[in-house]
């Protein structure tokens, strides 16, 4: 966190020099805005669509550096480790279907979160299946705080064309929308009678999911959000200002068959950001020498819950640190060579998925796991449900070792890619369920209905996950408050470095 806050401004200036644009004030300084949870207007942005500028700047800069080779459709599935040090990586070249061994003494994972654990209750890319997390774990790295997944309260669940669209939540917060269960009750009265629908994101998510899981949801597994208690012209005025022509970010509500002037819409929380991840130090180094991590795949910076604006800048700070440290390490580590027998064994694990003539279907395993995650390991958790989830997810993870890919075509085999992802997703599912079961308190995004209070004396700890002999092991370590304690006393680190 110290490295992040210390280096974020410089990382943003570097990004700007690559060609990313940011909104500026008249005197040429960055426009800084206040975002939810901030005490000071510190967020910089580009018309609140900042991510696309990151993509633009970075893509342009990569193009300007001839020493960078970009390999598309190249799915790194495992890291080879020899004597505690990285020796290389194994990748599936998706287009040809061939497994490729890359000799390398350093590897950096910037593989994102694991939001697909909750599909279809998810607003992220469909390839965020925890592949980097699971590969790092298999290589001997540790995961930390894996029980913490952030949900956004209002993702559309119907029609499918609008599934996961979250900006519709504006109707709740800024237009005065009401939430109803299937009996037409404004259920927020039971959860937050003072604030009702203007409650916090976390409280709203918990209320919605409680209604759904207790059988009071809408037909497609959400609850109803409606603004029809307002005048039609009043709604129209809001639409004209916020979603002109009923459109936003390319989606058109009317074309998709939704008229919010007359209809209620079905919404439910969606997984949005993963706070847990691979454990690393301020140099982005993991427990495996030569393996570095950056961005959402890491744990630590965002603790038990993330506040708005930190995800994008985290990628730039950690990407720079991890890349620099990995390059320096590689220069000193000398040439690495993957052991051929080890490579053959690893490739065999994956090629067996295609060679088998029978075995579980990856999609069936994945869908069942996602359903369990949503019901028992999602927004609202309790000990009984989590115990069931851990047992069933462990069984599914075992079955995944025998997955049979029906499609036998080598080239661009989506089913094989998804089978590998599903195997990783099941590692993350069981890890998350185990850590959530153990943490008998409520903290950050982790809500235990049966232990609803934060319990500092007992649970001011990080959950650490390791993999030994195919078993997912969990232990806890006290949080290391080296720079900033919960009481607020700041101790600048003795070895405070300028990382960038």
């Amino acid at each position, binding site marked *: 966190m110290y490295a992040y806050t210390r280096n974020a401004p410089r990382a943003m200036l570097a990004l700007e020099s690559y060609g990313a644009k940011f909104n500026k004030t008249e005197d040429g300084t960055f426009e800084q805005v206040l975002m939810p949870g901030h005490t000071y207007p510190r967020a910089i942005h580009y018309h609140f669509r900042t991510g696309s500028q990151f993509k633009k700047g970075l893509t342009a800069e990569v193009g300007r550096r001839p020493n960078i080779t970009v390999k598309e459709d190249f799915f790194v599935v495992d890291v080879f480790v020899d004597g505690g040090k990285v020796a290389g990586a194994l990748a599936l070249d998706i287009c*040809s279907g061939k497994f490729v*061994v890359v000799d390398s003494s350093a590897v950096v994972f910037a593989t994102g979160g694991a939001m697909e654990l909750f599909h279809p209750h998810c607003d992220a890319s469909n390839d965020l299946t925890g592949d980097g997390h699971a590969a790092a774990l298999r290589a001997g790295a540790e995961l930390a705080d894996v029980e913490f997944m952030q949900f956004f309260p209002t993702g559309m669940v119907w029609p*499918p064309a609008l599934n996961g669209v979250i900006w519709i939540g504006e109707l709740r917060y800024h237009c005065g929308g009401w939430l109803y269960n299937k009996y037409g009750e404004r259920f927020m009265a039971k959860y937050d009678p003072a604030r009702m629908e203007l409650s916090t994101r976390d409280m709203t998510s918990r209320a919605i999911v409680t209604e759904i899981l207790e059988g009071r949801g809408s037909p497609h597994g959400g609850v109803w959000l409606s603004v029809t208690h307002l005048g039609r012209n009043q709604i129209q005025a809001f639409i004209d200002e916020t979603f002109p022509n009923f459109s936003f970010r390319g989606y058109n509500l009317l074309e998709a*068959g939704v008229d919010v002037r007359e209809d209620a819409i079905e919404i439910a929380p969606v997984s949005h950001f993963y706070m847990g991840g691979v454990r690393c130090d301020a140099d982005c180094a993991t427990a495996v020498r030569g393996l570095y991590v950056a961005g959402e795949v890491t744990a630590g910076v965002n603790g038990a819950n993330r506040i708005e604006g930190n995800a994008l800048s985290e990628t730039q700070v950690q990407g720079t640190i991890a890349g620099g440290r990995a390059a320096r390490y590689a220069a000193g580590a000398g040439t690495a060579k993957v052991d051929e027998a080890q490579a053959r064994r690893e490739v065999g694990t994956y090629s067996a998925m295609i060679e088998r003539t029978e075995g579980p279907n990856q999609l069936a395993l994945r869908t069942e796991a996602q359903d369990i995650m949503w019901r028992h390991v999602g927004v609202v958790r309790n000990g009984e449900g989590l115990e069931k989830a851990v047992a069933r997810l462990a069984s599914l993870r075992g079955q995944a070792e025998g997955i049979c*890919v029906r499609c036998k*075509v080598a080239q661009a*085999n989506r089913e094989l890619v998804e089978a590998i992802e599903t195997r990783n997703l099941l590692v993350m599912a069981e890890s998350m369920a185990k850590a959530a079961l153990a943490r008998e308190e409520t903290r950050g995004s982790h809500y235990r209905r049966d232990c609803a209070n934060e319990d500092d004396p007992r649970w001011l700890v990080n959950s650490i996950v390791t993999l030994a002999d195919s078993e997912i092991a969990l232990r806890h370590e006290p949080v290391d408050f080296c720079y900033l304690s919960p009481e607020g006393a700041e101790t600048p680190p003795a070895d405070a470095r300028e990382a960038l």
Partner: protein
Amino acid sequence: MNEDLGTVKIYRYNPAVDVEPRFDVFEDVPYVGRTVMDVLRDLYERRDTSLAFRCSCRAGLCTACRMRINGRAAMACMRLAERDMVIEPPSTGAIIKDLMTTLSGSSTDEGTA
């Protein structure tokens, strides 16, 4: 005829195996309230797991799912499905398989294990 089901013609071609491209026709395909990507995923999951197409962000940002839908270039994740559709790969890039074409910077020249 059921009002809620459509017909989808999809370009199929695996240059490593096939002599020439063909179109596969899928009948009785649910399409109402779905994007073209929803339809492709549905066909992949229920009817033919060998169907190749790109899909990533599902929100019109990454542009990976660019393809031609009834002759017009569009992102499959943003375009609403129609009752009758012809789906072809984008006109840029070389065909890898079916609806999947090469992206810039892509190469497949590494040694294999």
